[in-house]
């Protein structure tokens, strides 16, 4: 699966979970809804969709769109 596909799906998740339109450079706290709680919701949705598991460490460290994309690519 390509990076393009992951990116498209991730954008969909942000739209569905938090109803925000992010781009490749978006970070946590760029949007009011993307707070710590929002971040968790995104990560949980990502886990569910791609059937992967983040470690506790990753869960605490991931704070931007790029980071999510990177780890999804790595794990998939």
């Amino acid at each position, binding site marked *: 699966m390509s990076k393009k596909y992951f990116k498209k799906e991730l954008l969909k998740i942000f739209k569905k979970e938090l109803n925000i339109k992010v781009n490749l450079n978006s970070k946590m706290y760029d949007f009011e809804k993307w707070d710590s709680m929002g971040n968790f919701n995104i990560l*949980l*949705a990502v886990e569910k969709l791609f059937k992967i598991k983040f*470690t506790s460490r990753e869960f605490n460290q991931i704070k931007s769109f790029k980071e999510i994309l990177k780890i999804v690519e790595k794990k998939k």
Partner: protein
Amino acid sequence: MKHFITSNFNLMHSNNAWDTIKKKYNSLVDHNFNYYFFAIKNKEYLKKYDSFHVFLYLDESNLVETRKKILFLKNEFKKNSNKSYFLYLIFDPSENIDSRNSFYKSFSKLNISSRTNVSIETINNLNKKFFNLRNKTILSFPFEIDAISKFKVNIIKNLSYLNIKPYKLIILDCDNTLWGGVLDERGIKNIDYGEDEIGKIFKEFQSQLLILKKKGFLLSLSSKNNSEKVWEAMRKRNMVLSKKDFILPKVNWYEKYQNIKSTLKELNLRAEDVVFIDDNFIEIKKVKEFIKKINVIHLNEPFDSVKKLKTDLRFQKNKVLKEDKKKLHQYKIKSKFDSEKQKQGISKEFFKSLRQKTKFIKINKSNFSRALQIFNKTNQFNFSLNRYTESKLKKIISNKNYKLMLFDLKDKFGDHGIISSCIFEKKKNKIFITDFAVSCRVISRYVEDYMIYLIINQNKGSKYYINFKKSNLNNTLIPNFLKKNFFRLNKKFKKEQEYEIIKSKELTDVKKIF
């Protein structure tokens, strides 16, 4: 109906997981556990919600404390018994059976779980994959995110219970139902009850029935047996149930459907609200043939008997009203009354001798739920059959043009409590009785006539009218009642009729009885 849902962990709002519950079931999902205590103790919140649900995740670190906290609410549970409380326990897999048992025990000791409005259930069949340590430490949500769907199933199941009408009367057979074997053939000593494997099942079945009785279900018997022998067997074998637990038991050699028909008539119950339990399929078929609407349970396998009580939703009761608890007592008063009526014949002198006392009671907080219950539960003597929600009725009470009144009844046998509820609408000097419902237990003893008398004498300058909406639920008692000479048909529109109430001599004479 509104519901309050919370937990002692973080109820994740991920993937819009709770949306269906929130919208479809009109619920508030709050992840602050402390609000549970706040809501239950705060009158404003209590008013708002009909049921309270809490998920408790229990592990070594919080078991003792949680138990303390919940038991602290015991009095609140008791005080507000018209609300339903659901506790869902989820034990951490590291918790051993002993600590689980001790947790349960501490509840049963304080008698919480036998209360009908408090239901404690464990979410079972969880494998290790259900739990997630990472989510626990980071999100304070100790489970996989999919667990939410399992929680939702539990809540939805219970919410649907809340709308189910429980049975009012359970009619039981004796042989091979309350004990194993035929009493007449085996004798008291040799029927299966208590000790051995199969006897234990019957004992457990009786215990379950006793619990149901405590929750307000009525128990009766319909058995082809010698009645003295049946009571003797219960006594000598030290059974959980005894003679005093049954109302109008019919232990004789008549056909069961005849016995059941007369029991229903004596108690003024509809067959839909009654369940008949027997092990004999032919008896079941016969009863069903003659009383079509009755519910039946066929106990073909004693091992299933307890399960059958637990799986039928109509044996569930998640609310207790004070009136429910008094019901057995009141039906007993009524059956005494009926036997006296038979002895003496019906004359006005007889009714006078009952020393009946009826009076107006104003609606207030403590009797509101009873008023609601009367409108929503009575069928046979309910003029409008209007059903009310709490908020709808409250609106009517607060409207100046309407007035809601209740009646109670006492007689020489005892206190019947609140037996009737009615709503008036004022239009200039006309007063319309839009709703009038009387509990069927007390019909046909001039109480309903006397209430009409009291109503029209409240305001002598006004003309009184009463509305009757006919349907198949109320088409026998009321049309008969309306034939009395103090009603005069005023208007008729399809199935709705409006009667003027006239101060006739017949009506004024009713006063002499009271």
